[in-house]
């Protein structure tokens, strides 16, 4: 049957099982929006295209499905850029559609024209400009395939308006064959054997788990490897939830704001089992001093991540789930008793802590959210201190429960991402742990959340500062707080919430914290919790930039 490009798009999305699209209309996507008008796919109208990209991202992270967003050409498309870069850095499967000016106008500086495939080339896994409607269905099939396989990532499809209007026979391909794209899934048996031997013979092993464990749905296999063999587990920000934080073998997050015991453990380990993690600079600190005694096993689906930052002894390229399952069969339990004893001492000596006085401490707020939600909530975060406190004090026990911009560190990500996560998990309690700076970067999405009855709870750790930058200024720039103080023009967040039809609760005293959280949880609406926290609280421990990660500052390490 012949149909228009716009209709082919909808039919293709149905074939891909897409349940929801986040987006914003505009001139050259009118044909698509006309098809959406009576399409059986949920459409979430955001208030800024950046919100659409982050919401699609949050939806994808929380559900494991491909997030889909759509924007018009020019400014609509460029507004997606930060969202695509965020998803790319954190390997999130997304497909973004952008409108484009008519094919014969491309390159003419037409109204609302931007070379979006050119702009997004380095921040997408792949992108397409479809010039012929006959190519559309196959392109969409390929885009979804590329987005969700191998190391996932965002894919953009640019659609000129005349292609949306032109007609073609709709034939959705059953299979995809891209001769230049064949991700490796099965780990090399010889390498797995070598790794198993190294683990079996190790004295001081440590598992360093990243977001790849979650992407590959390998948490159970990881848990088996750790628990059966008594191997401690530290996680990256994106790896949190891959292994329960409440388990005796869990060391929490490592790196710049990691726990002191995780950092000491990785530095003194003699075998690092890295799974789906990429030795980011926030994790390793000073590279030439990183884990000097350790042999490294690196399991990753992306060959380019192996031996990029640190030299790896046993690389295993492939799917973490498959490789861990095979490893579990081959590993003989090493004797780690003395090693675990050593780690226990560090845990006792350097616990994560904060001053538990009468003030409203941000860490206390996060702990209370954890208690109130019994650790079952999905926690999105913004970026900065709020993000690090969430990572340190919310004990994540399940995969896909922390939604945070790790690689890109995108402020303004958390709230729209929480909207996407809530949409994918209608029954879950979804929080955005925010700062007063970050939340103002995509505050307009309050309208989206309220209009679509997505009862996200926004917990603002409001210190009237761009807290993380202020912390660096305090520690490394002689307290010269250059443009990091937001006081004086801070909005009344309660009134702001109310103006959008949401609920606002202000908290100024410690004993109000828990009742406010409970009230928010009992409210079937979007709630802003404005926690007016201690203004100059710092995130500790902290490894100064460029230092070895066992050289932490703060009296807590």
């Amino acid at each position, binding site marked *: 049957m012949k149909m228009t490009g716009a209709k082919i798009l909808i039919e293709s999305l149905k074939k891909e099982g897409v349940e929801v699209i986040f987006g914003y209309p505009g001139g050259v996507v009118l044909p698509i929006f006309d098809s959406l008008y009576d399409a059986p796919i949920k459409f979430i109208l955001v208030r800024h295209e950046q919100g659409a990209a982050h919401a699609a991202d949050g939806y994808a992270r929380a559900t494991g499905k491909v997030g889909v967003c759509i924007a018009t050409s020019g400014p609509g498309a460029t507004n997606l850029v930060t969202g695509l870069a965020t998803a790319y850095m954190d390997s999130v499967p997304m497909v973004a559609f952008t409108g484009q000016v008519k094919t014969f106008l491309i390159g003419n500086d037409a109204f609302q024209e931007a070379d979006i*495939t*050119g702009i997004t*080339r*380095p921040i997408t*896994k*792949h992108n397409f*400009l479809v010039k012929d409607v006959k190519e559309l269905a196959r392109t969409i099939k390929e885009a979804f395939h*590329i987005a969700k396989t191998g190391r996932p990532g965002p894919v953009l499809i640019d659609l000129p308006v005349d292609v949306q209007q032109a007609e073609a026979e709709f034939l959705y391909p059953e299979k995809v064959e*891209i*001769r*230049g*794209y*064949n991700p*490796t899934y099965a*780990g*090399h048996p*010889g*390498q797995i054997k070598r790794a198993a031997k190294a683990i079996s013979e190790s004295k001081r092993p440590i598992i360093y788990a990243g977001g790849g464990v979650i992407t590959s749905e390998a948490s159970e296999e990881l848990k088996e490897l750790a628990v059966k063999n008594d191997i401690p587990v530290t996680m990256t920000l994106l790896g949190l939830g891959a292994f329960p934080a409440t388990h005796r073998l869990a060391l929490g997050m490592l790196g710049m704001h990691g726990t002191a015991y995780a950092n000491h453990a990785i530095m003194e380990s003699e075998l690092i089992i890295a799974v789906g993690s990429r030795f980011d600079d926030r994790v390793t600190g000073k590279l030439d001093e990183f884990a000097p005694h350790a042999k490294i096993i690196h399991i990753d689906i*992306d*060959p*380019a991540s*192996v*031996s*990029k930052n640190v030299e790896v002894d046993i*690389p*295993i*390229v492939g799917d973490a789930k498959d490789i861990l399952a095979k490893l579990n069969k081959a590993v003989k339990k090493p004797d780690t008793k003395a090693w675990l004893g050593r780690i226990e001492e560090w845990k006792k000596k350097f616990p994560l802590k904060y001053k538990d006085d009468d003030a409203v401490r941000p860490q206390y707020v996060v702990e209370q959210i954890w208690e109130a939600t019994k650790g079952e909530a999905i926690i999105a975060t913004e970026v900065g201190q709020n993000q690090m406190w969430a990572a340190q004090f919310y004990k994540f026990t399940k995969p896909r429960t922390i939604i945070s911009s790790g690689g890109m560190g995108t402020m303004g990500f958390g709230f729209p991402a929480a909207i996407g996560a809530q949409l994918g998990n209608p029954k879950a309690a979804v929080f955005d742990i925010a700062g007063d700076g970050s939340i103002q970067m995509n505050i307009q999405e309050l309208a989206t959340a309220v209009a679509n009855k997505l009862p996200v709870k926004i917990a603002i750790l409001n210190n009237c500062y761009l807290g993380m930058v202020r912390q660096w200024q305090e520690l490394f720039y002689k307290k010269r707080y250059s443009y990091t103080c937001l006081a004086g023009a801070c909005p009344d967040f309660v009134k702001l919430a109310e103006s959008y039809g949401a609920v606002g609760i202000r908290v100024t005293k410690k004993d109000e914290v828990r009742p406010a959280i409970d009230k928010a949880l009992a409210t079937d609406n979007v709630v802003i919790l404005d926690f007016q926290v201690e203004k100059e609280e710092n995130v500790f421990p902290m490894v100064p930039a460029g230092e070895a990660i066992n050289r932490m500052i703060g009296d807590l390490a």
Partner: protein
Amino acid sequence: MRHTISVLVENKFGVLARISGLFSARGFNITSLAVGETEDPSISRMTIVVEGDDRTLEQIKKQLNKLIDTIKVVDFKEGEFIDRELIILKVPATAKNKKEILEAIESIGARIANAGAKTISVELVGDQTKIKALLELMRPFGLLEVVRTGRVAMSTQDKGLKIEGKPEVNE
């Protein structure tokens, strides 16, 4: 160390931008890059000459392989490939030195591409040694313009570059 890499890519628009963008974004230096269609018109072949230590080269190859439009990447081993480049250069010629120029051209096996009223354009196809020798030989006459294609390279082995998916990194 200098490496010569052959990259088979989809013959589509935008592919060159993907490759060159990758080099600039990741801080890799390209010494030369030449592109052209292959025996299969749907495939282009790029010959890229790069400088870098082993680790950088490993990253370059992996990143090239990561591109969806990249079909195959081959890093040629020393002594197992031939490489050629075309150079055209223009020197001023007068009645006085014309004979000397023509003798020089002949001595090195180059050819006259164009003889103008006041200039002679010379062409030569050869390996880097030969190209360098030509440049040295012609420099004294005054180089008005030099244009080079960049190197193209091919393996000397009897089999062609097969496309059977990308090579695995695991040995």
